[in-house]
């Protein structure tokens, strides 16, 4: 049973959360202009990393907030947890984020825009 630190409620068993798959997936703004292949990449292709991965969880039985987790899928070690409108803070998290092929979700874009205002 994973022990996940909800950024708001603190440590809880994984049974309290729902898994939301890969984090930082960019939803195409103008999907109509994409080919079926390009759209399929957004819809179905996975990083499915063996090792460090950035993923989404939601604290279903608690505050119902979505957040991101940097976890090692081999050891299940959790390196960091951060709200879904933020970017990873740890060195490993930043590196993984940079190597991600489709980073910057709408939430981040929004947050970045807000910060720029």
């Amino acid at each position, binding site marked *: 049973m994973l022990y996940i630190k909800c950024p708001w409620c*603190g440590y*809880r*068993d994984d*049974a*309290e959360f729902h898994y939301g798959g890969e984090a930082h997936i960019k939803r195409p703004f103008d999907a109509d202009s994409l080919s079926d292949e390009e759209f399929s990449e957004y819809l179905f292709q996975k990083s499915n990393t063996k090792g460090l991965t950035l993923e989404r969880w939601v604290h279903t*039985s*608690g*505050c*119902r*907030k979505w957040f991101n987790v940097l976890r090692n899928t081999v050891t299940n070690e959790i390196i960091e947890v951060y709200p879904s409108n933020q970017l990873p803070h740890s060195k490993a998290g930043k590196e993984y984020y940079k190597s991600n092929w489709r980073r910057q979700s709408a939430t981040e874009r929004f947050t970045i825009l807000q910060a720029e205002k």
Partner: protein
Amino acid sequence: MANAALPKQKDSGISPLDKLIKVIGGAKDSGIFLKECRHTGKLILRGDPSNDLFMKETSKVLAYKLPLTPNTFLKNNEYTSVWLGPDEWLVNSLPGDESLLERDLNIALTDVHHSVTNVSDNSTIIQLSGPNARSVIMKGCAVDIHPRVFNPGDAFQSNLAAASVIMWQLDLIPTFNIMVRASFASYLWKWLLDAGAEFGVQIQQ
């Protein structure tokens, strides 16, 4: 259209456990005391605490500032406010007072993006008390409620057995209020009776 208000009389209608709680009683020296807090007023309040106006206006209505520390609650004689999330609170009132509170909050927050939703009937509160109350909860809840980390004033949302609950500790007896959705109340009640059986359960009015 105005929000559906509840009639004034405080104890009318049927609470989720009315039909289930048949026998009131049990040994005086029981390790567990159980009762249903019928028709407590319950509002879900949503708003952005970083908005000063939201905090100011809500504290005017409640007579205190909404708790911002996760997993805590604050109360006075009228209202109990439980932190549920970074932009969500449960505000309890005495039975029947919730409509007024709902109206007051909505008026106070007219210019602020917020929501107040009356959920008084969406769930009920089971009060679990007694020297063995902690042991009973630990049978079905993975949150640490040891007195070193959990005391009167503390609260959490989690699962108790197979029910989703909001729970907060009132005193050092200890006494816990367990809020559970109406349709899960009878399940949880039976579960608590069964879990408490080894300590003896007294059912209270």
